């Protein structure tokens, strides 16, 4: 088993501008807590009692409307968000691609960012150097790598980010809606690498909007709605269910 999620719930506080300021805390104290600040401390139930497992070779497409909890679920699996309840077990190395910046330094050059990301991923300096050339080759950015990445187009950033995130083939690769900005040739290349990963018994979970793209990459579907697991299984089944749900207009 690659990923095991047991009864995971996540609720997190959302602070608006007012709640994030110190004065309201002070005011609350001064008035003995009678000022109603309940409205400013909103708790969001982002995930509710999710349980599922991912096996080797599973390529899971995340489905659900905006705000259903797809990005949150990916971040919980990555270990970025600690779940409020339940446990997440991931066997092996996780790699993530939640936005095309990957936390890179936009003033630094492509080469420097390769090194920086390598270190963020827990590689040693020697390993960074070893992988740098293969990252450069895959990204096909050539001389652009010597330029600050703020000069890159979205597609070029995506190429670099994807090359970095998939270099040391991860056991579990989590991708949020970002692949969209790539051009066709990149998409084919990325697809090939993703299938390669899946065939070597690795897992992939990806949030994509186009069903067409989902179908090309994934063999399973996981549909969540309002933080609840609605369906999980073979891609075509779940996709059909989800499609039916959307066309019935019951979303929202």
């Amino acid at each position, binding site marked *: 088993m690659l990923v095991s999620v047991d009864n995971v719930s996540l609720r997190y506080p959302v602070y608006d501008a007012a709640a994030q300021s110190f004065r309201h805390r002070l005011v609350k104290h001064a008035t003995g807590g009678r000022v109603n600040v309940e409205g400013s401390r909103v708790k969001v139930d982002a995930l509710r009692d999710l349980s599922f497992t991912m096996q080797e070779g599973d390529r899971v497409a995340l489905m659900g409307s905006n705000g259903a909890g797809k990005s949150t679920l990916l971040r919980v699996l*990555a270990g*970025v968000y600690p779940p409020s309840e339940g446990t997440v077990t991931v066997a092996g190395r996780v790699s993530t691609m939640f936005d095309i910046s990957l*936390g890179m330094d936009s003033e630094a050059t492509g080469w420097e960012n390769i090194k920086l990301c390598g270190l963020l991923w827990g590689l040693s300096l020697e390993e960074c150097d070893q992988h740098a050339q293969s990252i450069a080759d895959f990204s096909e950015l050539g001389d652009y790598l010597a330029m600050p990445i703020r000069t890159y187009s979205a597609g070029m950033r995506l190429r670099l980010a994807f090359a970095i995130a998939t270099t040391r083939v991860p056991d579990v690769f989590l991708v949020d809606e970002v692949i969209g900005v790539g051009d066709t040739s990149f998409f084919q290349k990325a697809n090939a690498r993703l299938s390669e990963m899946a065939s070597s018994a690795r897992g992939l979970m990806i949030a994509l909007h186009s069903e067409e793209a989902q179908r090309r990459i994934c063999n399973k579907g996981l549909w969540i709605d309002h933080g609840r697991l609605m369906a999980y299984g073979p891609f075509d089944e779940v996709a059909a269910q989800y499609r039916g749900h959307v066309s019935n207009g019951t979303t929202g």
Partner: protein
Amino acid sequence: MKDVLQEIGAGLMNWRLWWTLSWFDLKSRYRRSVIGPFWLTLSMGLTVMMLGTVYSYILGTPHTAYIPHLSLGFIVWTMMSMMIVDGCRTFMEAAAIIKQRPVPVIVFAMRVVSRNLLFTAHNFLVFVPVVFYYKIVPTWVTPLALVGLFLITINGIWIVISIGIVCARYRDIPQLVLSLVQMAFFLTPVIWGVQEIGNEIPLFLQLNLFYHFMELVRAPLLGMEPRMLSWYVAIATTVIGWIFTVFLYRIARRRLVFWI
């Protein structure tokens, strides 16, 4: 508690990562700028020259004593105050990384501290001409300044962690910190305090942590022994501050990611 300490330790030990991050921060100051962070050094040097001339005249202090006091005071003050003010943004500036990977967040505090040490190294150049012009010779107490710098650094780490956490949660605090630090400048003997402070230290100075830490670096470099009181205060601050920070971190570590 054990895993909290392990987490903090893991962040401190991951020096390759925080060193690279702070090195990139330094480099970004040099990008498209010929002298980069030396602008800060240059402006500090000019300020020291100007204030030195004016105040040694107003206060009637001979500039041979005043300029070394002032230049070192400025360097150490800038180091301490910049770490604190810079520390407010510690976790917010790293939000993109923190929301992408489970990196031990202490790394980002170390990045802030180490980049400020790099800037301080630039600023120390202001003191070099002073040494030669006023012929300040090293004595047996001079190396104590390194101990002082070390104490400032390890206190800087807990301050940056704590202030970074509090500022991530309450967005008003950075403004508050900024104005408090600006006020503290006037309470700290940087542009004054060469001759005024006798054997009896006034209470407001006894309570001023900036004063004690500054003296641990400045006094030895000027050939004087820091007061025992300053050592005691610095060591007590280190212990209390770190204990406080460990507890604060324990409360905040699982929530921090939702605050930024």
